[in-house]
């Protein structure tokens, strides 16, 4: 997890550190399928994936989401500061793909229970194509508060 980051340190447009993962391997996808208890053969069975119209097995959308989350928790000092995460799976990720997760602040506001920062988040493959995109909400401490 990251160093302390304060509400006052980020403004709209602020880009958080990118997180790069990959190249993804079939082994990693298989490990994810097992860990998440996902029985869909499209992630592990080459022939099944081909019959379904893909060139090989595909990564789980939720796996790409996990990497977006890792970018956020790597930046945040405490993982519990991540309050919401939403991602749309826009393109399939394949073994061999390298994913770069990115995030940018879109809004910040103070509510009774904390200082909220909203971000747009996304993940791109090596060709610059977006595989997942969405939004996240995090809570940051204020420098003004004791």
């Amino acid at each position, binding site marked *: 997890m990251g160093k302390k980051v304060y509400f006052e340190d980020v403004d709209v447009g602020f880009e958080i550190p990118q997180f790069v*993962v990959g190249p993804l391997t079939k082994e990693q996808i298989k*490990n994810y399928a097992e860990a*998440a208890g996902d029985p869909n053969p499209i992630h592990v069975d080459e022939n099944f994936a081909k019959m379904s119209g893909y060139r090989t097995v595909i990564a789980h959308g*939720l796996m790409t989401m996990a990497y977006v989350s890792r970018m956020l928790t790597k930046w945040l000092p405490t*993982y*519990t500061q991540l309050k919401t995460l939403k*991602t749309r799976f826009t393109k399939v990720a394949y073994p061999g793909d390298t994913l770069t997760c990115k995030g940018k602040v879109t809004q910040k506001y103070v509510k009774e229970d904390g200082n909220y920062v909203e971000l747009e988040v996304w993940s791109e493959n090596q060709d610059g194509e977006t595989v997942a995109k969405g939004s996240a909400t995090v809570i940051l401490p204020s420098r003004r508060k004791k």
Partner: protein
Amino acid sequence: MALDKKLIGRTFPSTTFTVDKEMIKRYCKAIEEFDPAFKEGETSPPTFASCFLIPSMMGAMSELSNLIDPSLIARIVHGEQEYEFYRPIKPGTYALEGRIADITEKMGRSGVLDILTLETTAKNEKGEASVIGRATILIRRP
């Protein structure tokens, strides 16, 4: 045939799911999350909640197969996922309470898509909501 919008709000029987340290460690290994906070499996990274998805969807789908054409169930794609994180998931038993949050439709590249949003609230042993997940499922009409 379109999905019946009357199904919006329908709840599914609650199921339980037990999380143990090994499960958390296995998940962390799979996403290569080696942060010391998760090393012993005593707490989990936020998206560990994705491990609830399959059991909650299985429950919902077996219920839904009584309500919608089973051939549609084979034509689903996970289009979107949303989480609200309230408390970290730690080893323990969670109650998964599912409901149909929304049903809409839109025109896709290969025809009309029915869009089903399944909401699952995972509650800890104290009955507190730990995480709410919303899975948006796209179903291609035959």
